[in-house]
């Protein structure tokens, strides 16, 4: 017991240097700033949140809307502002709280835009609300909102390491599957189009390279946390982190995520290392640390909250086990699980609305309702197919249609919607994805198994 107690004290209650947390606040803040700015400059606010007429909301979060273009621009402006304030440590608590709320709100608007790295930023900005990252080298110090402190509790640093570790570990566990390890899919296919990659491109034409990358990637994800946590191996581990993420960022269009990880993993380095970084900018030696740690974790509600936060994160990736069928095909329980670059999937969906009496059907031209990106994401993901069917059904609810031959057709309260969907997984040829006789407007949304998804045949 005493061993365990010691260990707990070491990881949680020990007073440690605040420097790693400060460096993390500054670098992470800068990345938040850069990625938000990049998002704005690419014109994505308009492409993703203003142009679409329909948004694929998350189940239970249907109330999340972009409101209007002024509001969404204001939100992004505030995100920029908050990220600068986080970096400078100005009104840190409020700005980190506001950043978390606004960022998560934006991400909840449309699941078309779901990316694991946005999820990571949401989680990390949530954690930052509870960390005393403004207690040193901050404008809050200067204006007197927070006292200058040089020690914090060990958990206040380790919680960041835990969050990063979970990302890698789950990403690694997700790679332990037949396609990734035995077929080296989807990398086998992807690498073949990368043969013009600088220097090593010619090797991408060999299947062996795909296997090397697949296995290397899986081993990297599974072990990197432990390597970084080890004092002696840390420096080599970080070297691999940098190589791995730079390689992926050049090869795949994954935006700023590699940079986020390269910068975040610096947290694993020693206090001395962070002190050195900070000492370039500020005198870290002055005022020998004699002050007491502010007794923050007396607030046990926060502890309970954070424990729950991690337990939920631990369980969510396994929810797919509750569903029958092949995960990569049905994607039931796929999101929020650190499944990164695991599948190659493409689809094509045609929707029909049926008339009540003679059961004639009318083809819906999807492109009139969705952006190309929405259409693409929707055609491979059953929950989005269902949402779109419901949307079409409600658009045509109780409507009267005048046909060109003069016929008048009255549609009921819940017009029948069916869809023909072809999906190709890992380039094995397009196949029928859902039962094309199912009336989708009568199927409920939610977490229940979607029985109208056809089983995957290999």
């Amino acid at each position, binding site marked *: 017991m005493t061993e365990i107690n010691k260990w707990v004290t070491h990881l949680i209650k020990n007073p440690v240097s605040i420097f790693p947390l400060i460096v993390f606040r500054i670098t992470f803040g800068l990345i938040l700033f850069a990625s938000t700015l990049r998002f704005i400059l690419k014109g994505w606010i308009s*492409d993703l949140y203003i142009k679409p007429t329909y948004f694929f909301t998350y189940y239970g979060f249907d109330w999340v809307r972009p409101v209007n273009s002024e509001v969404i621009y204001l939100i992004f402006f505030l995100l920029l502002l908050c990220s600068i304030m986080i970096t400078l440590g100005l009104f840190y608590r409020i700005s980190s709280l506001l950043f978390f709320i606004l960022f998560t709100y934006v991400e909840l608007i449309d699941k078309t835009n779901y990316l694991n790295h946005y999820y990571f930023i949401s989680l990390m900005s949530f954690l930052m609300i509870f960390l005393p990252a403004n207690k040193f080298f901050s404008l809050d110090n200067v204006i007197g909102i927070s006292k200058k402190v040089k020690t914090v509790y060990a958990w206040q640093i380790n919680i960041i390491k835990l969050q990063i570790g979970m990302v890698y570990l789950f990403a690694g566990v997700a790679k332990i599957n037949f396609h990734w390890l035995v077929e080296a899919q989807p990398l086998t296919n992807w690498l073949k189009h990368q043969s013009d990659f600088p220097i090593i491109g010619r090797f991408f034409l060999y299947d062996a390279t795909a296997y090397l990358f697949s296995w290397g990637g899986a081993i990297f994800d599974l072990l990197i946390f432990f390597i970084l946590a080890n004092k002696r191996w840390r420096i080599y581990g970080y070297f691999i982190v940098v190589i791995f993420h730079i390689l992926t960022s050049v090869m795949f269009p994954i935006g700023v995520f590699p940079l986020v990880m390269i910068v975040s993993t610096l947290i694993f380095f020693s206090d001395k290392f962070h002190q050195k970084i900070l000492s370039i900018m500020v005198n870290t030696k002055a005022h020998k640390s004699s002050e007491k740690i502010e007794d923050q974790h007396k607030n046990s509600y926060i502890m309970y909250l954070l424990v729950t936060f991690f337990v939920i994160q631990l369980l969510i990736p396994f929810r797919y086990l509750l569903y029958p069928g092949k995960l990569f095909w049905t994607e039931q329980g796929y999101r929020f699980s650190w499944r990164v670059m695991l599948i190659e999937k*493409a689809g094509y969906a045609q929707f029909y609305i049926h008339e009540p009496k003679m059961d004639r059907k009318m083809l819906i031209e999807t492109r009139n309702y969705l952006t190309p990106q929405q259409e*693409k994401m929707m055609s491979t993901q059953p929950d989005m197919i269902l949402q779109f069917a419901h949307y079409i059904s409600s658009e045509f609810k109780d409507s009267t249609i005048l046909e060109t031959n003069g016929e008048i057709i009255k549609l009921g309260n819940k017009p029948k919607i069916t869809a023909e969907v*072809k999906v190709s997984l890992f380039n094995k040829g397009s196949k029928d994805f859902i039962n094309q006789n199912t009336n989708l407007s009568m199927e409920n949304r939610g977490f229940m198994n979607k029985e109208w998804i056809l089983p995957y045949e290999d």
Partner: protein
Amino acid sequence: MRYKSFVISFTLVLLIILLMCVSCQKKGCTDPIALNYSVEAQKDNNSCQYQDFDKLNLLKNLSDNYITPSLSAYNDKINILNNSVVSFISSPNIQGLGYLRNSWEDALLNWQDIAFLDFGPSEYIILRSQTNTFPIDTTELQNSIISGTWNFQNSTFNDSKGLQAFDYLLFKPGYTDEGLITYYQSDTNATNYLKSISEDLLININYVTQQWDLQKEDFINDFETTNTGYSSNSQGSSVSNIINALCLHYEFYVRRGKVGLPMGVFNGFSQQELPHLVECYYSGKSFQNAVRCISSMRKFINGASYIANDNGVGLDDYMNFVNAEQNSQQLSSTIDNQIVTILDELGNYNNSLSEEIMTNKTALSSSYEELQRLVPFIKVDMTSALGVLITYQDNDGD
């Protein structure tokens, strides 16, 4: 206080760095013969690459043996059309009308060869809408002729100009050939209009041919390489551009526009036929143009050269290279077989498409099914095999 001044100076430095980022000097490859030569780069960062993969052959073959000769063949036909118009309007007669109709028919068939090359300069001037929009807005067209004023620079005139306006003007309903001659002898506005549309066609294709000559090197070396160093068929790369253009043209302008829409497939529950929406409604030459367009797409996919029908490096070889399969068959042969089936189907009809729509819909419906069957093969299977995203939107993935 020292501490405060440290923090404040850090803040200032940070803001200065942020400002400087905006005015950073661009680095890249400065060697013009490298694949990733960057025009914007001012400083070489040793990133130049010179490579030897098939993709280069593919793009070179498509550009040299299909795109360039097909553009110039169409350009020639438009020149001939233009000459026929000039000689016809100088003294309208039966023989001149015959020549004019023939040269129009030739030009339209040649148009089908390049209609799906909707990238680069063609995309830039929206050549497809300017050249072959149908149905023609006959009211607008007639009003223009009566008033003697029109402005083809304005895109609202796209549906009263181009090759389909000829279809109307040379095969005007209610006119015998003699009647048509009399009409053009007596109405100078009408002859001026003919002249204007053929000149407009000529200006557009001249522009596209000239621009293509300037741009084709970039195309062969992959447009995108100028920005990021290498392309991997990403958004904006040549492979991505040709495949997006091919899929869009087939799905939207051939399957839907040339056949589906006039058949009524997209017309509500009753699927009431809309035969006046066919291409070449007035001359009745819809089938030959649809067949020509699909055959040309087949040539292009198979990498055949435009003039001699040989087999060069094409998208089919690229699909084979990545072992793309559909139903445990080579994807390339699945696609080719499907195209052959479609061509057989469409070659079976004796009357014009608008007549067949009204009299023979059952047979046409099964032909349409075959047209439809090709869509997922190219839009899902081909694009994902070649690592191309079907989207015109820029975005991150994970």
